[in-house]
């Protein structure tokens, strides 16, 4: 292995990184300065521009990629998709935590509490724990292919669980109270909508950039394992030759 393959960066990721930064700067300008404060929520509405895209990226994009990658791995047995599924789940958990934290920070000034038993809040918290379980399985100490196969089964089931949990919690809450707040009902200013859009693009780019890097780390780890075995075999051979 030469030095060039030892990093996790490449020309593509460098360019993607700069693009992400550029979009990030424009996004921050729109989200923080150009878009107006909302009438009832004032400036706290700006948290929405990162909160909602983070939720979409983690729940649908990242965990969706995990489920699809897991399915392709079980079907074709390709290590590539196994590592993609793993990388995507890890970043999804990160975005999910970010969604929860920004949601609570938004809830405190708007609802007066950090946590309400809102359907989305509750189901996102359960989803977060579901995928922490997936990551725990990925860390199990067992032969790599057995672990990958089990993780793939779990990745698909966990994504189905996300859907079941979301519907069941929504149904559970609907027995108690109406929807706490429906963003679709709010009249939205064009620059606000554009900020949302930029936020979604920005966070998808961050996701893609992190995904490629995290994938390479996973790939290098597997290379290191096999390189370690090769080195050990070489050593034994050298001993035998003496």
């Amino acid at each position, binding site marked *: 292995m030469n030095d060039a393959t030892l990093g996790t960066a490449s020309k593509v990721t460098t360019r993607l990184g700069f693009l992400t930064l550029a979009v990030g700067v424009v996004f921050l300008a729109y989200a923080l300065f150009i878009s107006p404060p909302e009438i009832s929520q004032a400036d706290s509405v700006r948290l929405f521009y990162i909160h909602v895209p983070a939720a979409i990226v983690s729940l649908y994009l990242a965990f969706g990629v995990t489920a699809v990658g897991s399915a392709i791995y079980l079907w074709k047995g390709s290590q590539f998709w196994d590592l993609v599924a793993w990388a995507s789940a890890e970043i999804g958990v990160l975005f999910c935590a970010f969604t929860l934290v920004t949601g609570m920070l938004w809830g405190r000034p708007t609802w007066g509490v950090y946590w309400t038993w809102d359907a989305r809040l509750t189901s996102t918290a359960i989803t977060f*724990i579901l995928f922490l379980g997936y990551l725990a399985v990925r860390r*199990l100490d067992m032969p790599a292919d057995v672990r990958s196969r089990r993780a793939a089964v*779990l990745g698909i089931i966990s994504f189905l*669980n996300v859907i079941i*949990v979301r519907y069941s*919690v929504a149904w559970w809450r609907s*027995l108690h109270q109406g929807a706490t707040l429906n963003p679709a009902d709010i009249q939205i200013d064009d620059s606000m909508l554009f900020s949302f859009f930029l936020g979604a693009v920005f966070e998808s780019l961050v996701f893609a950039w992190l995904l490629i890097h995290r994938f390479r780390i996973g790939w290098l780890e597997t290379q290191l394992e096999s390189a370690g075995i090769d080195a050990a075999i070489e050593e034994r051979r050298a001993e035998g030759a003496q």
Partner: protein
Amino acid sequence: MIRDARLIAMKDLRIEKSSRVLTTQVLPFGFIVLILFGFGVSPDRRVVGDANRSVLTEVAPGLFWIAVLFAALLAFGRSFAVESTDGSLDALRLAGIDPAGIFLGKAAAVFLQLIILEVLLGVGAVVLFNVQLAAPLLLIAVVIATTVAISATGTLYGALAAGQSARDTLVPLLVLPALSPVLLGATRATESALYGPTSDGWPVAGLVAAFALLYTAAGIVSFGLLLDET
């Protein structure tokens, strides 16, 4: 598949019959959880606006199912602990037993043990929490649907963590969030079986049954993948 399932279920139940882990360990554990809930909620607290109803009685269905879930975690652990020594799962596979049969058999054995546990804990809950029963048929339906859901889910996740030193901590982490919809449904349906109206409970019991079927199907399909080369 069904024949294999029966063999496995009978084997697990025979092991339980001779070891009596369920009756001597899991059942007392369930009871102490129920008693601790009484400490946590406080039996003297009354529902706001109605001095005749105690909070403990109102929330009894949820507490009962949480106690069952905790006890079930021990049952799952036990179900795979008996397979963890001497490469027992590999031996079962080598003996030509269908993996789907292993899944159904182990789930069925857990199901039967949990039903016994639930009946006994149910009596405990009626006594301790002063619960009255309105609709026994709905209650039986809920108990069966929920128990199938719990057994299928626990057996599936138990296999995921099988052969692992981390099994005892991993299975609860995987099972509890996955079963959260079942807990919601079972609690709601049990509430309506105890305090009415029963018309609210039947569709919910149906949803729990759908979940149970889904997980049973998932287990039948994926168990071979989970057991290979362990």
